[in-house]
């Protein structure tokens, strides 16, 4: 269902959820959003549970940073305090925990979008419905494709370097090694962009020229229903939490 959900409406819904999680500074809300997103990933997008868990690791680390700052070190980050104040006085639990779950919730909501959306479809939808100029659209597509490739490229760079220096390859790069990889990685990205430009040109992409698009699934009443349902669910949860709080 998520995979066939129209990318633009899906984007709207995910953004709405993320904005809500920024505004509603409640533990219960964050946990609910987090659970819902995780469930969708496993049950609907059929992402293996193990992979979902792995996906959470960076977000959890991230959230843990907030957690340690604001709880263990008692140095409440201005950010957290501000959020707590916006919600009217002190929050129900330590802001650190709420922040921790908010990171996870936002992360999973983004993952729902990123893992179930084909960059090609998204870009074509943007070109079709929002009149994004094709050169910008395909540059965006290139940028979206390059991110997942960085991991493999980094490994290849590390292998080549290990071979050059005559050292065995370490499983995890040392921090120093990771920093020195930044320049080659950037160089790779620019080189790839340069090649893509030549490839686009050789295949006839040209600003201002009329071009067609692979037929994209139209926005159907199912998509609208999904969007409405999603927004309604959001509104309901918010309402329930607010009445519960007051």
């Amino acid at each position, binding site marked *: 269902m998520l995979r066939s959900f129209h990318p633009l409406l899906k984007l709207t819904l995910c953004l709405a959820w993320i904005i809500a999680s920024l505004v509603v500074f409640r533990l219960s809300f964050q946990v609910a959003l987090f659970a819902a997103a995780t469930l969708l990933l496993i049950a609907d997008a059929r992402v293996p549970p193990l992979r979902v868990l792995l996906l959470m690791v960076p977000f959890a680390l991230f959230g843990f940073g907030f957690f340690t700052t604001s709880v263990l070190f008692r140095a409440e980050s201005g950010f957290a305090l501000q959020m707590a104040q916006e919600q009217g006085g002190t929050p129900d639990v330590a802001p650190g925990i709420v922040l921790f779950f908010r990171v996870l919730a936002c992360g999973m909501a983004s993952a729902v979008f990123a893992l179930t959306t*084909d*960059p*090609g479809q998204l870009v074509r939808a943007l070109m079709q419905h929002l009149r994004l100029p094709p050169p910008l659209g*395909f540059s965006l*597509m*290139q940028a979206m*494709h*390059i991110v*997942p*490739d960085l*991991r*493999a490229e980094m*490994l*290849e*760079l590390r*292998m*080549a*370097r*290990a*071979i*050059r220096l*005559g050292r*065995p*390859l370490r499983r995890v790069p040392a921090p120093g090694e990771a920093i020195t990889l930044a320049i*080659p990685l950037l160089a790779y990205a620019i*080189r*790839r962009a340069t*090649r*893509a*430009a*030549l*490839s*686009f*040109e*050789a*295949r*006839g*992409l*040209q600003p201002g*020229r*009329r*071009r*067609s*698009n*692979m*037929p994209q699934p139209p926005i159907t009443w199912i998509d609208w229903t999904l969007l409405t349902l999603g927004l309604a669910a959001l509104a309901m949860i918010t309402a329930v939490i607010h009445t519960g709080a007051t």
Partner: protein
Amino acid sequence: MPDALAYDRVALRHDGALADAVGPVSLALAPGERVLLLGASGAGKSTLLHAATGLFPESIPGSRRGEILLGGCPVESRRPADWADTCGYLFQDAAQTLAGFTVRDEIAFAPENQGIEARRLPGLVAESMTRAGIPQGWADRRITTLSGGERQIVALAALLAQGAPVTLADEPAASLAPAAARRMVGLLLAQGHAAMVVEHKPGPVLDRIDRCVALGRDGRVMIEGAPRDVLRHHGAALAKAGIALPLAARLQLSLPDHINPDLPLQAALARVPPARAQWLRDAVLPTPIPSGETLATLDGADCAPAFGPVVLRDVSLSLRAGEVLAILGPNGAGKSTLAACLSGLLPPRAGRRTGAPGAVVFQNPEAHFSRESVRSEIEGLNHAPDRVARILDDWALTTVAGQHPFTLSQGQKRRLSLALLAETDRWPVLILDEPTAGLDGAAEAALAQRIRALAREGRGIALITHDMDFALSVAERAVLLNRGAVQFDGPCRALMRNSARLSGAGLLPPEAAPVLGWLEAAC
């Protein structure tokens, strides 16, 4: 009717270069004509193709002298992107032809740009995939998760979908297994379509082209004519210019009294006296080297590409000192994956690897470059200055020593990447991933000798290649990968005689197969 493509005294120079990369060249491609462009590595073939629609010097910085006409119009009368309806490119590097999207997006890209009706696009994409032999299930795969040869096939499908009447193809078959290469050449050089093809190994192309043009080392047209005539009458000149010749032509050059060029090799060999057996054996087979201790072993290993699924199961394999092992198989069989595993760079997902650490010369030579010039890359090996000069000379890189590695021609890149690993003795185990792709005849012969020399020093060498003749001439042992498993592990010579087994894996017997037969009969 005007020529499909005509170069009139064209000379091209890259920005920052001190001399012209090629030219002056005058050359024409008639409508429907198929031309093979030969030339040593660095002769300027790719640059010449880039200039055809004005990509050079519009997008690749440089300058041009002379005139180029496309269908009778000067090339600069339209922008390069406008010419996409006339001229389709298959660049030397598939990573250049494609942009790195999903297979479907890549194939649909050119037709979309031409504004072809949206409802016709899905059918066009599916049809191009079928013609190129790509499973429909790959439509959503990303290009960067494909093997080198698979990318090349997707590039071909994208070109077919573009449907331009003139095709410019730069070494289209260099990273393809023989059967796939034939299919590719058949599609590219279909009757009635004008095409200009660059190829170092003209074997599969020869039957389908109308004319052959050879560039000399000075970047000018040296020889021109019907392919068979050019090979028959100018073999010596071509070889001198570094251009690879088919085996029959090479044998005929060395044994002009015995080998009749008008006969197929099998029949011609019948006239060779048995006394020549040793000579013929040396020409097609390596001199044996006694093998030493085992250097690296895979034991029940499951191999997977980085971040990919397991593609080879339960591989048990060992490599000895002094041994040259050929790793053969169709595209996507898992050869590069096995290389990473056998070298110890990527641990197997199951099973064990033991032994000395190994190094791989990657299929993509650019992966090895890290410095600002060819010379400083070589200096990075920490040899004395005179040794640096000798290395540059040995690998024919002296003339480009000051250039940035990424501006080299494909063959020069390949030689540099090979030199960087062959010229250190840090690694007892050395794996070469398609070392001959992009090499010209002279460089390939030098490489064969170098590989044997390394083995004699006690190195264990594994060699991944699609060139059966090259495998036969340097490796004693071969493994054949297919369908996720090792299907054969034994003497290379025995495998090369087994045409059923080879064709079952998308390979073809080497050109030297008749010689092997002759040797067996003679001794």
